[in-house]
């Protein structure tokens, strides 16, 4: 705490304090000596009375000096500052950068008003406090810095108007860029009175990466005032994820919604609804569609709970929907938008290169079994896959557009029809699996399917069975979608399969090895055509029956083949159906093969339209736009082949950022982040102006001194004029 004076020249009057002392000293005279009959009674009377009198006189002397001191100080107008570091230079204008947190957590509604609306009001009040010549800049900060007034100005009208234009975003908080920007702007100010005023809910997720060192422009002389809008004991529930992978007809589809309770207490009987609507009947702004399911759920404090919904899709097609919990004080994270595909069964074509007399002896026996495990008569469960087996000769009669995935099992004939058909199929987005065997000639394959194969075939490597020498799988890329299910070991152990024979290969640089035999021998290699919208190609360097290995006899074979098919089938959709985009994300949307439309019209969830011109290059053919700023369903419309095409995107809040967690950063932690900065957190909004003014300009204590002065005067009068005893 320090004291300064608004009229320090009056302090020259301080010597008047010595007047009572001088009067006392000057009025002191040497007492005369006089004879008296007896001083016995004088002594008796003096012992107590004089001591009291002297004490009283001393008090009076001090009081009178204090009265004069207070009078002088009153004229000098003292100002007390509790935080001296915040002291402003007298008579110099201020430069302030006002940062308003507009992350989506600021949409929290209290007493009918969102925190962002409150923050804007607070900023308005701060602007009103500005004195003549004071300059300010205003920024909205979430994970992006959005200037409202990007330069320091004293034009209050501009500041007020721009402040009114500020809107709440749907982004998470990242305060670092905004604070850095503020320091940078204040570097340009020559004023010694510089401050950053951050109006925020102090959400804990926004402070990552901030410390005194992370801000290059950090200046310890810049005062940092934080206006805290967060009141404790908040409750919030958010839908953090909806899992709706590609859904197929014929099976009851499961939609799993993850609901997170960010509150301090448990929540019981929370109402949750799911809305699903076919794409062709979807209209922007009316995305709720028909409610397809609803239910109640209980949520533990601070935990995430999964709510499953079941739905039978009536027909094939793209569906749009959302999962919504009953609205709370932060409504924007109460729903999660999704888009999914419901398709007929995934059609798989198996080309058997070595058909046997019985199905058991044919090359595709194990493949057929693994792709249609539920086709037995006793099973009532419908398989989502439809498998057709043909020979290489029969291939030319098949209409490849009907299939999503084609398996070549030890096919020896590399005909031009097969080559062209497969190339076209992959270009259109279809998935192909090459499995090898003794019918395969490496040279012919390299010549015929060289553009499709992800690796060049070399030679067959055979290991003697009798010597019990075999190879096992030594490398598994568990990050790949088809192997994710094996990562936890629940679906079996691939490394238990024994391989006796395989092709050695030279993997192309653009290809990726997913499975490898011990000794860095590629077993399953993934590749794709360098063509926009093309599908994927797998090369399995051994057989998919038991001729060269015992993998088909292992339990892991079925899930491996199923995963491969689902993975390849997805690629025919040009995109992952369960994929949702995040607010703030730059959208890249593939439009697939074919002639690109001249422009694509995009309609955002509020119905606002804008056009984007598609781009095409070696790796990409589609549109790029964004970042998207609002959650919901976006519609992309374009004309292709003289037909209107409508595509949809689901955009959601970045719940993973933990923005929905309304816990606030502690004052101590914030101070630790800004060790060198003079920092003050104001949480009393009613007295905010007073607090800020007192912080910057101190508190004038003349009123208090006046009270003290009056008190001293009364005391002086009382002591100097005691009531006489009658």
């Amino acid at each position, binding site marked *: 705490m320090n004291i300064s004076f608004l009229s320090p020249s009056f302090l020259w009057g301080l010597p008047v304090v010595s007047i009572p002392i001088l009067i006392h000293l000057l009025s002191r005279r040497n007492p005369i*000596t006089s*004879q*008296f*009959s007896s*001083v*016995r009674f004088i002594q008796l*009377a*003096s012992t107590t009375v004089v001591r009291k*009198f002297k004490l009283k006189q001393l008090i009076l002397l001090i009081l009178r000096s204090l009265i004069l001191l207070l009078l002088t100080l009153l004229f000098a107008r003292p100002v007390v500052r509790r935080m001296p570091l915040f002291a402003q230079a007298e008579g110099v204008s201020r430069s302030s950068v006002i940062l308003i947190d507009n992350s989506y957590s600021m949409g929290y509604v209290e007493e009918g008003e969102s925190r962002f609306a409150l923050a804007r009001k607070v900023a308005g009040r701060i602007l009103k406090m500005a004195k003549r010549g004071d300059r300010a800049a205003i920024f909205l900060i979430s994970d992006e810095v959005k200037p409202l007034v990007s330069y320091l100005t004293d034009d209050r009208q501009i500041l007020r108007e721009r402040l009114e234009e500020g809107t709440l975003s749907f982004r998470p908080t990242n305060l670092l860029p905004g604070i850095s920007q503020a320091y940078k702007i204040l570097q340009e100010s020559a004023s010694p009175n510089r401050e950053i005023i951050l109006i925020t809910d102090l959400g804990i997720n926004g402070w990552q990466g901030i410390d005194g060192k992370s801000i290059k422009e950090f200046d310890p002389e810049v005062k940092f005032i934080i206006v805290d809008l967060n009141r404790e004991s908040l409750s919030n529930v958010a839908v953090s994820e909806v899992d709706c992978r590609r859904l197929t007809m014929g099976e009851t589809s499961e939609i799993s919604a993850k609901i997170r309770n960010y509150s301090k207490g448990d929540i019981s009987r929370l109402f949750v609804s799911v809305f699903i609507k076919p794409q062709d009947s979807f209209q922007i702004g009316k995305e709720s569609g028909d409610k397809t399911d609803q239910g109640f759920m209980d949520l533990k404090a601070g935990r995430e709970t999964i709510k499953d919904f079941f739905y039978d899709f009536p027909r094939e097609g793209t569906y749009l929907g959302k999962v919504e919990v009953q609205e709370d004080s932060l409504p924007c994270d109460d729903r999660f938008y999704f888009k999914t595909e419901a398709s007929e069964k995934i059609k798989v074509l198996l080309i058997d290169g070595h058909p046997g007399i019985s199905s058991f002896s044919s090359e595709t026996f194990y493949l057929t079994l693994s792709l249609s495990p539920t086709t037995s008569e006793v099973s009532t469960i419908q398989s989502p896959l439809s498998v057709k087996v043909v020979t290489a000769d029969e291939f030319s009669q098949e209409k490849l557009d009907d299939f999503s995935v084609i398996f070549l099992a030890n096919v020896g004939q590399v005909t031009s029809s097969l080559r062209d058909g497969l190339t076209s199929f992959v270009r259109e987005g279809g998935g192909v699996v090459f499995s090898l065997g003794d019918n395969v000639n490496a040279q012919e394959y390299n010549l015929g399917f060289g553009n499709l194969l992800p690796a060049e075939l070399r030679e067959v490597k055979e290991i003697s069975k009798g010597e019990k020498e075999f190879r096992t799988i030594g490398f598994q890329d568990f990050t790949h979608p088809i192997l994710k299910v094996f990562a936890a070991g629940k679906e079996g152990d691939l490394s238990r399969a024994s391989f006796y024979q395989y092709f050695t290969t030279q993997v192309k640089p653009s290809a990726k090895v997913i499975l490898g035999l011990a000794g860095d021998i590629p077993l399953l290699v993934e590749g794709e055509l360098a063509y926009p919208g093309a599908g994927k190609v797998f090369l399995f360097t051994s057989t998919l029956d038991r001729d060269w290995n015992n993998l088909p006899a292992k339990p892991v074979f079925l899930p491996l083949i199923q995963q491969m098919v689902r993975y390849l089938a997805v690629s025919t959709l040009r995109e992952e159906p369960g994929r949702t985009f995040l607010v703030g994300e730059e959208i890249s949307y593939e439009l697939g093969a074919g002639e690109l439309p001249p422009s694509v019209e995009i309609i955002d969830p509020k119905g606002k339209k804008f056009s984007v011109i598609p781009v095409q290059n070696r790796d990409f053919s589609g549109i790029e736009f964004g970042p998207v700023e609002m959650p919901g369903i976006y519609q992309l419309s374009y004309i292709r082949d003289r037909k209107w095409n409508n595509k949809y995107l689901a955009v959601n809040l970045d719940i993973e950022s933990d923005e929905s967690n309304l816990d606030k950063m502690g004052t101590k932690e914030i101070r630790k982040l800004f060790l060198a900065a003079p920092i003050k957190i104001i949480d009393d909004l009613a007295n905010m102006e007073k607090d800020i003014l007192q912080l910057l300009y101190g508190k004038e204590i003349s009123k208090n001194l006046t009270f003290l002065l009056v008190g001293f005067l009364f005391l002086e009068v009382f002591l100097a004029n005691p009531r006489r*005893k009658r």
Partner: protein
Amino acid sequence: MQEPKKGYIDPLIVAKLSTMLLRARFVVEGFIAGLHQSPYRGFSLEFAQHREYSPGDETRHVDWKVYGRKDKYFVKQYQEETNLKGYILLDRSASMGYMSKGITKLQYGSYLAASLAYLMLRQQDSVGLATFDEKIKKYIPPRQSKGHLSLILEELEKLVSSSLTGINRSLRELGQYTKRRGLIILISDLLDEQEKVLNALKYFRFKKHEVIVFHLLDPAELELPFADVLWLEDMENGKRVLTHPEIIREKYKNILEEFVETYKLNCLRSDIDYCLINTKTPLDFALGAYLARRKMLR
């Protein structure tokens, strides 16, 4: 303390008279002239003189024969036979030398003593004088002769204040001279150990003496009228005390009042006449106190 009335004899005027005899006569005669009743009404049958009747005299003493001759009222006066021995004990300690204005306590005391001696001798009583400070300095035994008065007055004339006070010791000493019942008149400021003084006075009462105490105090001692801070030096022991009169006045007066009240109360209990006299008080006022006591001895 009784306030003197106008018309009484101012001690300052008395002090201006040249000799002690004049002073004594001035006081006593003036005093008598003011009385409505003769103080000299004796008990013996031996005629002394006639005096013109004055209102208040008892009619039984009117000499009707003289009235018959002169057609004026005269009352008969008789030579009183007395067996009263009066001892005037005058304090001449240093503290008695204090005066704030005009007259010291010792002067006042000596005028009072002279007046009392004059009055007593005029009433045919024997009167003696003892002056004392720490002890009795001068003792004149009681006599009734007219020449005795001049002896007493001479002693009073040359009296000066001297040393410390020793009232107790002096009273004890006087006790050795007063074998017969008599009247002890103590004139002092009584600034001594109070209990011892009272014990000594009570001793006289025990010996069947009548006792009158004239407690002399200067107006300054009673009021402490000083304005400024001053050093007060004790006249007896020389001790100096820095005094804030304005501050201690109340307290001082309370202590003094308590001191006086103690004397007054104890004297009352012991049937001793106590008379507090401010040295501004007219001398004849003090004589009245004596006469009141004298009546009781009749």
